[in-house]
């Protein structure tokens, strides 16, 4: 007998459930996650190096986890700050998922860590779909990437809590049109803060740390319009947008099973050398 089943399941429900639990677990430990997204080469690592160094100076306990397809170069750079740093090699996977992140934190994240910076895989497409349990999602773009980047990658920029422009020290040389960039950001994410930084000169360094600490203290965080659509339970797009009555979280039947999606994770992790660097640049 053939039967049609009205299933109604959000495809990312498992990741979202994992992210919720991770956020709650980390909150209980006093840790707030900052998820950094950008294209490859936008300057996530350089800015993060500067922010970690500043945190070290101010004795703010922070840690960083950086994800790349290959090499431990970023972890080596970040570890110069003296802060705990972990490199995750995704073996080709283009994004991090909440369960992967949780697994990497187990037994590594030092107690008392106030902020955990997660440097996502350099990619503005895939990471945008995955909540990692962060409180602050930061999307970066360098001045060389074109003012229309927010329009080309609307989901990434549209879901940001903070947008950071990097490499502004060369803005003049590359003819960066700040007003156009800001207008494009406002089109996909009205109201989000756009901060200007230049890690090489130190301009704007510290803003990320300040915003992250404010969010960790429970301060207000920008609410992107794009994140406002209730996607829980039954939702028919052609209906009047009635407030979703079942917004409360109930866990999927077995959130920890090893099915399907999880397989991808195991593969992605296979044979990877997750390394913790205590310091020591390899230059």
């Amino acid at each position, binding site marked *: *007998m*053939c*039967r*049609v*089943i*009205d*299933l*109604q*399941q*959000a*495809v*990312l*429900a*498992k990741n*979202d459930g994992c*992210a*919720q639990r991770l*956020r*709650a677990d980390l909150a209980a430990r006093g840790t*707030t996650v900052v998820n950094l997204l950008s294209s490859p080469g936008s300057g996530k690592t350089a800015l993060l190096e500067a922010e970690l160094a500043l945190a070290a100076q101010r004795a703010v306990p922070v840690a960083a986890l950086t994800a790349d397809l290959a090499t431990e170069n970023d972890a080596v750079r970040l570890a110069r700050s003296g802060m705990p740093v972990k490199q995750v090699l995704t073996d080709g996977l*283009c994004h991090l998922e909440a369960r992967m992140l949780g697994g990497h934190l187990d037994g590594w994240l030092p107690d008392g860590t106030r902020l955990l910076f997660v440097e996502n895989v350099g990619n503005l497409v*895939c990471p*945008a*779909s*995955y909540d990692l349990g962060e409180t602050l999602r930061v999307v970066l773009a360098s001045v060389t990437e074109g003012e229309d980047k927010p329009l080309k990658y*609307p*989901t990434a920029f*549209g879901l940001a809590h903070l947008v950071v422009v990097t490499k502004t020290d060369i803005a003049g040389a590359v003819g960066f049109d700040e007003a156009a960039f800001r207008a494009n950001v406002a*089109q*996909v*994410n*009205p109201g989000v803060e756009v901060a200007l930084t230049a890690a090489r000169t130190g301009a704007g360094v510290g803003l990320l740390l300040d915003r992250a600490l404010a969010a960790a203290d*429970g301060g*207000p*965080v920008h609410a*992107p*319009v*794009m*994140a*406002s*659509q*209730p*996607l*829980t*339970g*039954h*939702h028919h*797009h*052609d209906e009047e*947008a009635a407030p979703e009555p*079942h917004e409360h979280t109930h*866990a*999927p039947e*077995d959130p920890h099973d090893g*099915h*399907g*999606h*999880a*397989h*991808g994770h195991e593969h992605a992790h296979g044979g990877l050398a997750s390394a913790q660097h205590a310091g020591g640049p390899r230059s």
Partner: protein
Amino acid sequence: MHEMSIALAVVGQVEEAAHAAGATAVRTVRLQVGELAGVVPDSLAFCFELACAGTVLDGARLETEPVAARARCAPCASEWPVGMPPDLCCPACGSAAAEMTAGRELRVTAVRWDEPTAPAAGAGSTDPTAETATEAVTVATTGRSRRTDPEER
């Protein structure tokens, strides 16, 4: 290219539901894909076929239903298609949209599968060719949460 991850998630969810219901073969999976879900339907279809191999979904067809993105303005009480790239400021008054009402969907809506001929709880006249939803099974899930909800932490 996270479509493979998405495809594996879809297959995993349908597999679970199918096993729970004792379904023997999944024929079609219907998926809503919002314009702003960040998923490419063609790529997803390719990955879906691979992800189905060797599961109860082997050979299943993926039917994707695109959903246009729409937003609503509170002061104007109007709703508009935001287009691509999206414009989330009200075309009438220019203020920021109060919310998106559609466009970020990424959800399995319906699945068609084979079940062993029903034990038929009393109802003797089950039509074996019926392909309409006779008994809708609804599985509540944790949906995507609003990550900006301040109470979430």
